[in-house]
């Protein structure tokens, strides 16, 4: 096994289910030690992609190498080096936290002790409780303990915080950062832009089975040309050219609502008022926010991530 090979490398992945193309022409390269995010709406093909990379689904075409090794012929070795959290596993209800961790730990030849794992995910007080009585966040941390049981090199997390309250989400993020700090590589899928922004060193935005754009979150946001987005409604229709002439405006998008990206909202907004006044119109709504990955997704697809 090459120690310099990328953690995950795939080229030309294709997967279809009947008429539906789930993944098409997908290339990814994930470096050792980074946290890589697959961001996209439900149905974008994130789960299919991550499960192909995990060796749980077979692609119709394309190649996958994990730590420099293809799945075929290396399954035994790779399984011991990966930690996996599936999107929908329900761990057995009637087992206790400790029994569950012990079961998962028993299938790996080396790794932390059962107590260390339980302490690490902050479930020491719940060790004798049945899985059934755990909260969503506690279950997700238990599931993470199971994924960490073999001291993996790569952690695959499929929508790790979906359905969790804000505090539980922060717990999971902290555990991800701990794993990174120990030199581990993470691939996670999410449809939360804040999660991708906070955790991912690099990310790919996916839609309809392919990657639309890839890069560092800050670079993707910067590619829109400004830190701020001004969204407005008015009684008159403004033309793209008019808006472009407003000071500090870097980008104009009139597809869903009227949006302009700007570096300096304090210069752009008064000029916008003035323009609408000149046209004898009236401003009916105004909203400004920091540019997010959601704006990137909107710029790429014409849809918002949260409604897609």
């Amino acid at each position, binding site marked *: 096994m090459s120690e310099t090979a990328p953690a995950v490398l795939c080229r030309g992945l294709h997967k279809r289910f009947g008429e539906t193309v789930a993944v098409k022409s997908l290339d990814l390269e994930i470096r050792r030690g980074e946290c890589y995010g697959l961001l996209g709406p439900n149905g974008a093909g994130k789960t299919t992609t991550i499960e192909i990379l*995990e060796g*749980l689904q077979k692609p119709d075409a394309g190649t996958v190498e994990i730590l420099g090794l293809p799945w075929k012929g290396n399954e*035994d070795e790779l*399984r*011991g080096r*990966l930690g*996996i959290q*599936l999107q*929908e*596993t*329900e*761990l*057995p*209800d*009637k*087992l206790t936290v400790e*029994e569950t961790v*012990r*079961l*998962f730990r*028993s*299938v*790996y*030849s080396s790794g932390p002790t059962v107590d260390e794992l339980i302490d690490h995910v902050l479930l020491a007080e719940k060790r004798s409780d*049945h899985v059934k009585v755990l909260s969503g966040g506690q279950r997700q941390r238990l599931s993470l303990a*199971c994924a960490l*049981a*073999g001291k993996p090199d790569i952690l695959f997390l499929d929508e790790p915080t979906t359905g969790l309250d804000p505090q539980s989400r922060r717990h999971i993020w902290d555990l991800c950062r701990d794993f990174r700090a120990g030199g581990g590589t993470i691939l996670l899928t999410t449809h939360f832009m804040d999660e991708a922004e906070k955790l991912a060193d690099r990310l790919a935005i996916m839609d309809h089975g392919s990657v639309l754009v890839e890069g560092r979150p800050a670079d993707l946001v910067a590619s829109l040309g400004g830190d701020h987005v001004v969204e407005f409604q008015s009684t008159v229709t403004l033309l793209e050219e008019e808006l472009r002439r407003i000071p500090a405006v870097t980008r104009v998008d009139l597809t869903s609502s009227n949006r302009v990206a700007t570096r300096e909202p304090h210069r752009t907004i008064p000029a916008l008022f003035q323009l609408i006044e000149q046209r004898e119109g009236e401003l009916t709504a105004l909203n400004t926010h920091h540019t997010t990955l959601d704006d990137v997704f909107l710029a790429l697809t014409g849809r918002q991530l949260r409604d897609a």
Partner: protein
Amino acid sequence: MSAIRELVLMRMRTFIREPEALFWTFGFPILLTIGLGLAFREEAVPPATPIGIQTGSVAEQHFGAIQASGDLEAVRVDGEEGERALRTGDLALVLAGSDSLVFRYDPARPESREARLLADRAVQAGAGGTRPVGIVEDAERRAGSRYVDWLIPGLIGLNLMSTGMWAIGFGIVFMRQKKQLKRLIATPMKRSDFLLAQILARMAFLLLEVPPIMLFAWLAFDVDVAGSMLSLLIVILLGAFTFAGLGLLASSRATTIEGVSGINNVIMLPMFVLSGVFFSANRFPDAIQPVIKALPLTALNDALRGIYNEGAGITSLIPEIAILLVWTGLAFLLAVRLFRWQ
């Protein structure tokens, strides 16, 4: 080995912590044994058969002898009443005759023929007649030859089949539905370890499952094992193994509880009827006997009854054991090939 141990423990814990499953596995067979055992334990000695003695006939002299026999209940009737009671079946036999004794009855009715023989014997005995061949009657009902003795080994066989197939089938399909199988194969767990653990857990449950039936049958109905306990243990383990294999096969692809229930019923119902659980399989036509003999439950029941009722040794049960081994081998080979993990 530690992984197998944890997998076995997981299976046992998830099962034992499910009260309904426990009842159906352990309580139900005992309830069935109680019900059937009570129904067949005291097969009542039939009441004395009523017969008529025609008034004014020579039969009246024998009234006392017939009553004394205890087998028959004599009533006095006139000629017309006697005729009518014979037609309606209220009387099995009418004794009449003005010179010699006349037995009037319908030979097509079994109880009439029986009453005739009993009346003949009572009349002859009353007249001091000696029988040419002396007979001592021994009508005590003995343990070992009653219906309940025959039934218990069949119930054990039935129980090994149904709990094996239901417990394994439901367990596997549930884990498949909840994606627990998928989660486990995402670890370095050996797939054969998982399948083996299911079977080992089944074996462990036998210790909780079979002894209560045996103990209950022994305490309540005096049903005893004629053969050796070791032979019985070997056959029970083998039977459990066979049906664990068939249970894995039946659940190897099903993704819903309904699906696996259907498959289990298709496999088990024919054996329920044909394999001699409640009545002897010999009652079916000769033409299908080879098929019936080849069924795993028939082989298991025959072997269990051989040991339980006849004290057969393991060597005389080789054909049955061979049938079970063939089924076990086939079931495992197919189950491992067909098994769907996700």
